[in-house]
């Protein structure tokens, strides 16, 4: 889908991309990096809107330097920032955007109705966008990127500004873009945890350099942390401690990572080794007769990956500083 070869982009003062070579196949691919890591610059180059200083890139087999218009006809783009005029309705706006992508008027209207329904906008689509919630606006932005049925969409920080429920819905939608619609996705985020659950493949860039490119299963195996919270009972006045001791007895050590956070004393963190760990926790909690309040995968901030990478690969201090 996307291939770059020692792609560089230098501005007078900063180097946004530094000899980036990456291959992205079909499916949902996450592009992770801290703010200013070069994610948006990369998307701009891939859309053929900004020339690379060095190296080359191909999208859908088309060279970005010469085939920009052809690429933009087959690719959708959802920007990070707000981009919707408030005084028109979602339908009106998306129809216009569909025509801007080259769809004939009738097809533009049909595709708009379809796409808005697929992203979850119904009656409200006839009202001016100005009155929409952030979640609805994000859906309109997504709809305008999908309305011309592209082969690939670039989604720049689609979960920005959404509450946890909105985030989950958006991530579910992104997953469906590939599984149900058959459109490949390149989605950027600075939250790795989010992308772990949604993407088939994750590319991590930092300071314009490729830090890591691997399928998500590799990531989850090395980075999944499990958070557990249990209730107290008469038999076990401090349920948390009881679980910790039981885990210790089975040879599973609890991580020390929640210091200072409110309610930290009641949350146990441990590294999941696979399905057995979940079973073990379930059995221990059941044996002790405690209530399991939560057992969830902790979302990682991108910096944690950098830290663990630094440990694992004995990377230089510099990279760790970059990541934090």
């Amino acid at each position: 889908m996307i291939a770059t070869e020692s792609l560089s982009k230098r501005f007078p003062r900063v180097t946004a991309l530094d000899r980036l070579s990456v291959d992205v196949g079909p499916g949902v691919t996450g592009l992770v990096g801290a703010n200013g890591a070069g994610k948006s610059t990369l998307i701009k180059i891939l859309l053929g809107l900004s020339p690379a200083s060095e190296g080359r890139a191909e999208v859908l087999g088309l060279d970005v330097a010469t085939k920009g218009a052809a690429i933009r006809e087959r690719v959708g783009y959802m920007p990070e920032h707000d981009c919707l005029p408030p005084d028109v309705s979602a339908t009106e706006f998306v129809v216009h955007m569909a025509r801007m992508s080259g769809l004939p008027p009738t097809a533009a209207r049909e595709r708009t109705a379809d796409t808005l329904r697929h992203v979850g906008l119904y009656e409200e689509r006839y009202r001016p966008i100005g009155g929409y919630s952030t979640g609805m606006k994000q859906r309109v932005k997504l709809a305008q990127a999908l309305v011309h049925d592209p082969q690939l969409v670039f989604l720049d920080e689609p979960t920005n500004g959404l509450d946890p429920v909105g985030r989950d819905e958006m991530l579910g939608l992104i997953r469906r873009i590939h599984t149900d619609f058959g459109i490949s996705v390149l989605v950027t985020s600075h939250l790795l945890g989010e992308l772990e659950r949604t993407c088939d493949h994750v590319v991590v860039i930092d300071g314009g350099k490729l830090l890591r490119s691997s399928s998500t299963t590799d990531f989850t195996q090395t980075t999944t942390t499990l958070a557990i919270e249990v209730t107290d009972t008469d038999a076990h006045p401090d349920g948390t401690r009881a679980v910790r001791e039981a885990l210790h007895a089975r040879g599973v050590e609890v991580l020390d990572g929640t210091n200072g956070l409110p309610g930290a004393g009641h949350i146990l963190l441990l590294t999941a080794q696979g399905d057995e760990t979940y079973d073990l926790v379930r059995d221990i909690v059941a044996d002790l007769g405690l209530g399991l309040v939560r057992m969830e995968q902790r979302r990682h901030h991108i910096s944690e990956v950098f830290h663990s990478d630094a440990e694992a690969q004995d990377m230089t201090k510099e990279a760790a500083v970059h990541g934090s």
Partner: protein
Amino acid sequence: MAVEQPMPTTPGDQTRIHNIGYRNYDGPRLGRSYATRSLYSQSLRGAYGLGRSVKSKVLPMLLFVVMCVPAAIMVAVAVATKAKDLPVDYTRYAIIMQAVISLYVASQAPQSVSRDLRFKTVPLYFSRPIETADYVRAKFAALASAMFILTAAPLIVLYVGALLAKLDFADQTKGFGQGLVSVALLSLLFAGIGLVIASVTPRRGFGIAAVIAVMTISYGAVSTLQAIADSQGSTSAIPWIGLFSPVTLIDGVQSAFLGASSAFPGEVGPSNGEGVVYVLVVLGLIAACYGLLMRRYRKVGL
């Protein structure tokens, strides 16, 4: 392309089954020039508030009516009094109504471009097949067309009225043609100036104020200076001063070449030689506006 087909229902059975799965689009993709035309028609409609809220229809429609009503009244008078000629020349009409035209360009130029900048819709356009030049051309052409509709409509009213009043056909047709050429030039010039000013600011209010200021202050200054020059007897300076405001530029062009009587003090229009300078300045300004817009939008990428 197929419309969602409800399953055939038996009479009395209210249930319908819709296929709500995703359907891929394999119809035609009409590409860059079609997209540019779509942007043109959307912007042209937008210049009269069509496809937008009721509130944004009020001002352009009102100005359109204000432009046409005096023409209708003149026609009514001409028909009723069986006058031999229309009270106002075709070429003169736009000059008389210049305040309305300035107000229109001041309100609609920012509407056309400042909105896209303010709400950051521009990056979305450039993520489509169109290029910077297509965007500028579509916006320029749309506003110029909107202005032409605004300024040509009253001329049509006058022309139709003149024919109804059985005025001399050849005479009226010639005047009408000259009027159309004049308002076409005026539309291009005003649209260019308005868009250049509006494209600098994402704030609509600033845009409106700036366009009004440029149009009225330049006209006020130029006509004051011309009046002073006239009262001091230096009539030769009058045409040259007229080069410095859009309205007097158009006035100069049409009085030199389109048989209009000048609105300059003393009714001294530019001579043919000076008229050539006027035409060159008008065309140069239109080209300069286009160039400035291109430069401006090269910087506004994603």
